[in-house]
């Protein structure tokens, strides 16, 4: 089975791709529009250069070759939401080509190309079966990322998308809480003929659409029926794909170069753009650089890249052991709580660790200071709570001394403690906190 994806992501510019209309969401239809994005006769496009910058950043992240010159093309097709009946996109010389992106740091997924293009408007059906068109989205910049058919399963497609989208969000600094629609055209062939499932919204639906199409194709093959090359649509309600039309080949759109926009020489611009390390690459690097358990590296980076950076700072200043003990332990456990409170004074945290490293405070004190600073609980209460946790664990260990001996063979034995505490306290303590305390107390008994 072969799966290839064409993935559309919105680029976070303030204004549209070819006019100065704002890109922000708008309550009323056809408000953020002007002659250019409405395709009025005599209007013409003027490129928002930031779109090139974002395009180059993604191309670099996907290890693509960035073309020295790039230009735009007209794709002509008739649809009510396409104001000019022409979409300005890229055909020859897109921004980047021939990239590769590693799934989980291991499996290479080849990237055919990345190009930038404008979004059409939106068609809305009304209750009386007429349609209305809203051009607020017309001209919003998108990047389209096209992969080779290197993806093996629908689940892997979702994994690929989750990872890549996470990396792009980080790269383009898109806030975690911002809703950011990702649309995919999913190509899948179980046998020899390829079927495209057009315009699937969201990662979960991409997997479901591919799965349902895979099942359909397998059934067709078993029944010795011919699979036709076509475009289908995914109906999430019924979880089936439905035929739309016989597949159009790209060259049927009659592409010509966009004559209103020139050729962009982007080599210098591309050379000047340095991109931050992707979260995925950071996980891989930290795992090997600090000999970390991959799970811990993943947990740190996925919780927050800032947390991972703090880990690296602490490791540099006080050694990897303290970084794992404190950043991987209570700091990681209470990170969300700290973020929720809007606290971000990381130097305080480093101060506690320094006091511990200098022998000024004990590890119990250090853990309490960290927790009380991050959660805002006063130290006495944190101490009491912590003491409560320790009492609970000690009691359990007293009753089950075998855990301590098992732990020496395999540290997974500590999980029994975690399960017990969780059952007793119903999530009062975070798992990281419990693990930390359990390991500490078990180790004190060895």
């Amino acid at each position, binding site marked *: 089975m072969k799966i290839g994806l064409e993935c559309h992501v919105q680029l976070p510019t303030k204004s549209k791709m070819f006019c100065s209309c704002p890109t922000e969401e708008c309550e009323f239809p056809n408000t953020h529009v002007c*002659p250019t994005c409405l395709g009025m006769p*005599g209007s013409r496009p003027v490129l928002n250069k930031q779109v090139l910058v974002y395009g180059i950043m993604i191309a670099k992240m996907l290890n693509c070759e960035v073309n020295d010159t790039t230009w735009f093309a007209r794709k002509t097709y008739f649809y009510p939401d396409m104001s000019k009946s022409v979409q300005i996109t890229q055909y020859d010389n897109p921004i980047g080509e021939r990239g590769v992106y590693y799934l989980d740091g291991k499996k290479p997924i080849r990237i055919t190309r990345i190009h930038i293009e404008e979004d059409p408007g939106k068609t809305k059906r009304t209750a009386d079966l007429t349609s209305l068109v809203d051009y607020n989205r017309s001209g919003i910049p998108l990047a389209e990322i096209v992969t080779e058919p290197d993806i093996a399963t629908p689940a892997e497609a979702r994994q690929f998308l989750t990872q890549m989208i996470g990396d792009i969000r980080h790269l383009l600094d898109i806030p975690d809480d911002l809703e950011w629609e990702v649309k995919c055209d999913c190509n899948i062939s179980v046998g020899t003929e390829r079927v495209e499932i057009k315009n699937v919204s969201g990662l979960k639906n991409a997997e479901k659409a591919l799965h349902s199409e895979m099942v359909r194709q397998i059934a067709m093959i078993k029944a010795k029926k011919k699979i036709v090359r076509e475009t289908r649509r995914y109906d999430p309600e019924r979880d089936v794909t439905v035929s739309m039309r016989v597949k159009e080949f790209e060259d049927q759109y009659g592409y*010509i170069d966009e004559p209103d926009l020139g050729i962009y020489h982007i080599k210098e611009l591309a050379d000047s753009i340095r991109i931050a390390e992707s979260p995925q690459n950071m996980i891989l690097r930290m795992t090997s650089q600090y000999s970390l358990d991959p799970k811990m590296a993943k947990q740190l980076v996925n919780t927050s890249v800032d947390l991972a950076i703090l880990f690296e700072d602490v490791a540099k200043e006080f050694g990897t052991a303290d970084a794992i003990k404190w950043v991987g332990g209570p700091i990681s456990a209470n990170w969300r709580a700290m973020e929720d409170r809007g606290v971000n004074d990381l130097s305080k945290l480093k101060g506690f660790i320094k006091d511990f490293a200098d022998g000024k405070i004990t590890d119990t004190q250090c853990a309490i200071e960290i927790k009380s600073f991050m959660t805002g609980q006063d130290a006495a209460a944190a101490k009491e709570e912590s003491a409560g946790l320790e009492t609970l664990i000690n009691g359990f260990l007293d009753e089950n001394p075998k855990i301590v001996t098992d732990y020496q063979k395999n540290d997974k034995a500590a999980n029994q403690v975690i399960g017990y505490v969780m059952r007793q306290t119903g999530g009062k303590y975070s798992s990281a906190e419990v693990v930390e305390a359990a390991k500490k107390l078990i180790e004190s008994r060895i």
Partner: protein
Amino acid sequence: MSMDDVMSKLKAVNEKYRMFHAMTDDTSAGDADFLFSAKDNLTSKDMETCAGSRILEGYHPVFDATSISKLRDAGGKLVGKTNMDEFGFGTFSTNSGFEIPRNPYALDRACGGSSGGSACAASVIEDHISLGVSTGGSICCPASFCGVYGIAPTYGRVSRYGLIDYGNSLDKIGVLSQKATDLKKYMELIAGKDDRDPTSMVQPDFDTSYTKMRSVAIPKEGIEGLSKEVEAAFNNAVEQLKGMGVDVEYVDMPSLRFAMPAYYVLATSEASTNLARYVGMRYGHQDGDRTQKFDDFFTEVRTKYFGDEAKRRILLGTYARMAGFGGRHYAKAREVRQVVINDYKKVLADHDAVLAPTMPFTAPKFDDISKMSALDSYKADYLTVPANIAGTPHLSVPCGYDSEGMPVGMQFVADHWNEKVLFSVAEDWEKQFDLKRPEVSI
């Protein structure tokens, strides 16, 4: 005649010559410094803009074309929007969805096209300048047929913001007038960078200082297939030029023969994408049956309101862009464009301009035009197309009259951005040429 006199007679003039599609109701010039008209493919806030097409009937743009707003800012009063071939598709302005302008020298003859109404207005109305647009010769052709001066500047010299596109890589806005000196004066007003049209942003400064023309090259390919009368008038004009101290040399420019097929591939390919937006949804006629599926609705509106020539060029362009043909035709045509440019550059390295008659014949009668095939009329543009495909500036001057009094024009082509040598030769020519104005009796 004062501007107010002109204004008071405008309606009557238009009755007779049909140069305007839309026009002002004002009968006085107010505090205007000059009057001008503009081809109807330039958008105007205060007047309906249709580009000669019924599909845009009733369309009132929300913005002025840059060239129009610049003339207004300079004190100009827009008096009318001129009739033209639909979207610029024609050589005689007979492919108009509305009125067909009449030749000022003989009402049963054409004004040329596609800026026919503009040339007619420039010829008939005193002290008038008119904005025209050239894609393949649409300024110089009607200038020649109507006996006026006309310039199509270098591609990118005048902002195309507000120009209803025919072929975006070819379209150029220029000026037509009875007076050579007006061309420079008004081109200076409309030229220049405009950040709303990126293709205008690469131009060098507009230098219009006097530069005497010392030599011209006449391509052998440019004096083939001429009518006897055009040939005679042209030869006579060449002698006059020599008398003005201009060296004349006959040269070979073999690539000119290939400009025409390449032009029709490029122009129709671009046009077919430009015309895709006219589907009866957002402007112009929207009176199709709305209970149909959207593509049937689009088809109904387009079938009803596009003229035959627009349909022909959409089909030609779509064919040229289609699978299997796109690479072969469009890419090849672009290569030919480069070859033509190289040919001009080679000749213009040794000469100030390339010279030939503007049109191979004088303004034809409407009866004769109706007998011409589409191909016949395409072929009539073989002298104007090469400079247009190369994007080089070109200027037509009236250079004689045939036995029936119809004007003959000749066209100078200069190197990119070198409009000044064209203005200079036109002004020198004007000083010694006996311009015969048409009789305008209202």
